């Protein structure tokens, strides 16, 4: 069967993909540039036998997700930067309670109210400190509407597998644009959740979903156990696309919408005789260290391009053990970098060699 390619907005594709991935609880609060996601859910979720509820706030939304997820249901919420900040406590609770869920962040310019144009300035928040305490969440960085679709279902599966929250870190550009997209059939069965708090029916001990451990040693044990799982995640789940990197002397590192622009620039650079390549992280946590190292094996310099003031740079340097010069080119506040600007930087670095 050939799957039909239809044009779809990124935000709507995320919603449709979630429904197909078995999401049966969506709780959101409107915010530009991701409102279409809720609107789509409002139309379609009930028909799929699931729940769409507009919460009174982002905080209520993430806690409704917590409740649904605690009862074993695949649940999701979606927001944009300021709204995601409000979910910090709730996400930390979900991580501390070992609950899976999917969180969408269609990033916009910050800080504060900022603007509503595309941004990647929540990288640190997503990869380092989505809330207080020692924990991580899975972070997927799609670069096309199709990849949004694919990653939503991947995110649900992986979140369930490791019992941890997963985030799709998108941006206003990806959320608002239409591109051709197909929806592959989902075959994987959802895992059993014997830990869920959904009524023991007299058949088992009561389940408790909780993140409180008053004894430090016990809390420490639970954190250490979780970090062991994280090690497994790092081994198995990091992902990246390598493009023309094999012989590249300059490797551009960029993710999400920025990687599209960067790819154009890399192509232009090649056309101009510069051996440029691209490494596009598809997971931001875990960061694809191995893939980056491999991609940079012939590199003389690395150029990190972001729609932020340079938040991924640390990860690039650390992955390379600071062994190569890492340059940075960024735009922020909603400005999308142009291919020509990136090309310029590539040339500069190439020349500076």
């Amino acid at each position, binding site marked *: 069967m050939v799957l039909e390619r239809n044009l779809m907005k990124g935000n709507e594709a995320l919603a449709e993909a979630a429904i197909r991935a078995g999401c049966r609880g969506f709780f959101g609060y409107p915010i530009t540039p991701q409102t279409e996601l809720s609107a789509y859910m409002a139309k379609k979720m009930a028909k799929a036998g699931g729940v769409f509820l507009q919460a009174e706030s982002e905080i209520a939304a993430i806690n409704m997700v917590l409740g649904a997820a605690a009862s074993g*249901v695949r649940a999701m919420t979606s927001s944009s930067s300021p709204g995601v900040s409000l979910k910090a406590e709730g996400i930390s609770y979900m991580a501390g309670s070992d609950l899976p869920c999917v969180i969408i962040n269609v990033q916009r310019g910050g800080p504060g109210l900022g603007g509503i144009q595309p941004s990647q300035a929540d990288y640190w928040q997503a990869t380092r400190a989505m809330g207080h305490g020692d924990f991580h969440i899975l972070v997927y960085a799609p670069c096309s509407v199709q990849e949004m679709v694919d990653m939503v279902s991947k995110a649900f599966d992986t979140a369930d597998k490791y019992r941890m929250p997963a985030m799709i870190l998108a941006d206003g550009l990806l959320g608002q644009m239409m591109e051709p997209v197909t929806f592959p059939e989902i075959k994987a069965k959802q895992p059993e959740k014997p830990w869920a708090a959904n*009524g023991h029916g007299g058949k088992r001990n009561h389940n408790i979903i909780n993140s409180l451990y008053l004894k430090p040693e016990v809390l420490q044990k639970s954190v250490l156990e979780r970090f062991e799982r994280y090690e497994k995640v790092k081994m198995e789940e990091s992902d990246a696309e390598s493009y023309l990197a094999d012989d590249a002397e300059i490797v551009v590192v960029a993710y999400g919408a920025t990687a599209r622009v960067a790819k154009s620039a890399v192509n232009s650079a090649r056309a101009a005789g510069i051996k440029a390549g691209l490494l596009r992280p598809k997971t931001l946590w875990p960061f694809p260290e191995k893939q980056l190292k491999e991609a940079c094996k012939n590199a003389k310099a690395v150029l990190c391009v972001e729609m932020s003031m340079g938040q991924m740079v640390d990860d690039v340097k650390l992955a390379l053990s600071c062994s190569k010069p890492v340059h940075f080119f960024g735009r922020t506040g909603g400005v999308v970098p142009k291919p020509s600007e990136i090309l310029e930087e590539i040339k500069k670095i190439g020349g500076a060699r």
Partner: protein
Amino acid sequence: MAVVFQRPKSLLDVPTHYCPGCTHGIIHRLICEVIDEMGIEGDTIGVCPVGCSVMAYDYFGCDMIEAPHGRAPAVATGVKRTNPDKFVFTYQGDGDLAAIGTAETVHSATRGENIVVIFVNNTTYGMTGGQMAPTTLPGQVTQTTPFGRDPKVQGYPIRVCEMLSTLDGVALAQRVAVDSVPHIREAKKAIRKAFENQRDKKGFSIVEVLSTCPTNWGLSPVEALERLRKDMIPYYPLGVYKDKGDGKND
């Protein structure tokens, strides 16, 4: 020899961490008695607050979820909406429900979420050592009102049942107390009605229980009961503030 009174089955047989004479324990038991009588332990999911009752998950025999401070009604909404045939209740203190959780309380009420909210009003933040709560009485000395709560400065206490009864989604809003055996019996009836409302899909039911905090009030357990009677009940009159009854006036 017949047993006239014993621990309800769904109240697990473990010691609690509550202070001597703290009436949280009585309220726990009443809920469990209702759960046992209705035979719904296996179909019930309870949601704990952050407050002295944060560890109630160790005491209730049904499945339990620990919610962030104030967010129990949102958590309960998430559970109930995706599990409409299960019973879901929250157990919340006055700091939890009426301060940080105000939005979640008001909105789960106005949405008519088909859940039960047990609201334990002890006019203070017990867990954190006795600070002012939204329900702290005028003049009451707490850690953060060392000169007594002055409504002109710290504002007026909130009467939660009165406020929520203005909302169309509320099926039951009733205030009870646990200072005496007759009041305790009434409290149990209210809790039972709340769970029956949920069974009958009537919507949001809140039972506000006037409770004590001997430790932070600086009173003996017996004196604390007296304060509840003498100071709290006049400010927070017991009674039914809203009752959609048999659903005919929906």
